[in-house]
């Protein structure tokens, strides 16, 4: 999976929900990308230097394009949200390891802005997946698309749609079972999912997030704590951008 640094061209930009944007980019990154990997986007504004890591939400090899779904968080994502069709943005990717495709009955879990990276995974699993999605409120996004790939359960923080609670509440209340868990979302959610998986003895992959500078494993900015001494670093640290973002839940400290 060679990394590509190039100017990607915006094919389409749409708003999915309040502050949530979807952007299709024509880029050779599509040729190399796997579910669970991410890209670094760079700002046009010259005073903002660091990458904005964004997960790959969909890969369309026919169009040589990838889809990014992102939430407005600060100045970088705001800049991206203003990009129009045919405009360009600098991209580096694909980055990180991605999800391994395993199991017969996967449980795919996404929370908040952790929902988008699970879409390509759900598509590629081609298994009898249970998909559990957590949202803040009724500003759902991508739900319909997930429905093509498995049984979708919804939880919302405010109870406006689906279960009033968290994705783990769904897992417990609906007695969701499976032989492998994939999860992406905020840290407290990942911690709860990890605990659930341990209890049930289910193998569990989680996708982590950390502030990045290089995005390719050189700066040691983006580490997360590991249970054992990491093979590369020789300390209890693994690089989210290179050794992750996907880790076996049991291997990292949350």
């Amino acid at each position, binding site marked *: 999976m060679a990394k590509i640094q190039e100017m990607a061209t915006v094919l389409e930009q749409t708003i999915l929900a309040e502050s949530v944007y979807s952007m299709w980019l024509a880029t050779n990154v599509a040729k190399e990308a796997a579910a669970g990997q991410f890209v670094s986007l760079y700002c046009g504004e010259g005073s903002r230097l660091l990458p904005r890591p964004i997960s790959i939400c969909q890969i369309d090899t026919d169009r040589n394009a990838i889809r990014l779904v992102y939430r407005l968080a600060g100045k970088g994502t705001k800049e991206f949200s203003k990009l129009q069709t045919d405009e360009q943005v600098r991209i580096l990717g694909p980055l990180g390891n991605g999800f391994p495709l395993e199991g017969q009955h996967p449980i795919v879990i996404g929370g908040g802005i952790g929902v988008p990276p699970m879409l390509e995974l759900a598509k590629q699993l081609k298994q009898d997946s249970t998909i559990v999605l957590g949202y803040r409120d009724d500003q759902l996004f991508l739900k319909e698309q997930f429905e093509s790939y498995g049984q979708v359960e919804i939880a919302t923080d405010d109870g406006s749609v689906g279960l009033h609670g968290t994705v783990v509440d769904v897992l417990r209340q609906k007695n969701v079972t499976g032989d492998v868990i994939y999860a992406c979302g905020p840290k407290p959610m990942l911690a709860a999912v990890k605990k659930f998986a341990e209890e049930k003895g289910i193998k569990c992959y989680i996708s982590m997030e*950390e502030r990045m500078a*290089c995005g390719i494993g050189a700066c040691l*900015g983006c580490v997360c704590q590991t249970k054992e001494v990491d093979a590369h670093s020789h300390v209890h640290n693994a690089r989210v951008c290179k050794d992750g973002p996907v880790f076996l839940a049991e291997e990292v400290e949350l």
Partner: protein
Amino acid sequence: MNTQVNLAGVTLKNPVMVASGTFGSGAEYSEFVDLNRLGAVVTKGVANVPWPGNATPRVAEVRSGMLNAIGLQNPGIDVFCQRDLPFLEGYDTKVIVNVCGKTTADYLEVVECLGQEKRVDMLEINISCPNVKEGGIAFGQDPKAVEAITKEVKKHAKQPVIMKLSPNVTDITEMARAAEAGGADVLSLINTLTGMKIDINRQTFALANKTGGMSGPAVHPIAVRMVYQVAQAVKLPIIGMGGIENAEDAIEMILAGATAVSVGTANFYNPMATLEIADGIEDYMKRMHVENVQDLIGAVH
């Protein structure tokens, strides 16, 4: 056209190096950059034993720059010699190993170890890291300490010694003279400037370590000033760094008195930065009808 420069007897094919800690040991960037085209690769700081570094967040963006508080995470000198040095074996470039430590004895242990490594052309002694509690900058802000550690290192070093200076000082020339008095072969500057960022929404420090080292284009004018001042104050060759992102920045540094330059933060947002800079220096030489890059060193004074 001659782009070669000489640092204490070591000849670099061109003046473009990478800055310690921004390029790993070269493996990650070798996917983007032909390492054979670099004057030298400077590795991430290495200590006698593995260091875990600081808690995250370790990096934050600031205008035209960044803060880092990695805290010198490194796998220790043994792994470094077994894994990272052999990787560089295959390349036709100079290898400079950046050395860190908590105590003088730590530094010396690493320096001794590296004395046996043929692949290592020079040592860069980091006495200027603002992100660790012990060692690092503590050695670099007091001229007596600078001179003492330089002397000790020189006693034990088999390779030429580069002392890396901190910009967080009142008078950089005082530190440069102390390193010169201690027997340093080369000086490199600047390391990062101590900075801070506060997240006003979460009302917390952007870095777990509270403060971090600032780097990137924002610090370039300070680096140029310090390189110039040091070039006027000592006879040693200087490796200039701090905010170099393009050939213009590199040439400024050379005109101010640097014999070679290191590119750091720019690698993060432009993995090809070093090669573009090497090419850009050649273009400039052509345009200005300069036959020998050495004629540019300190040409503005």
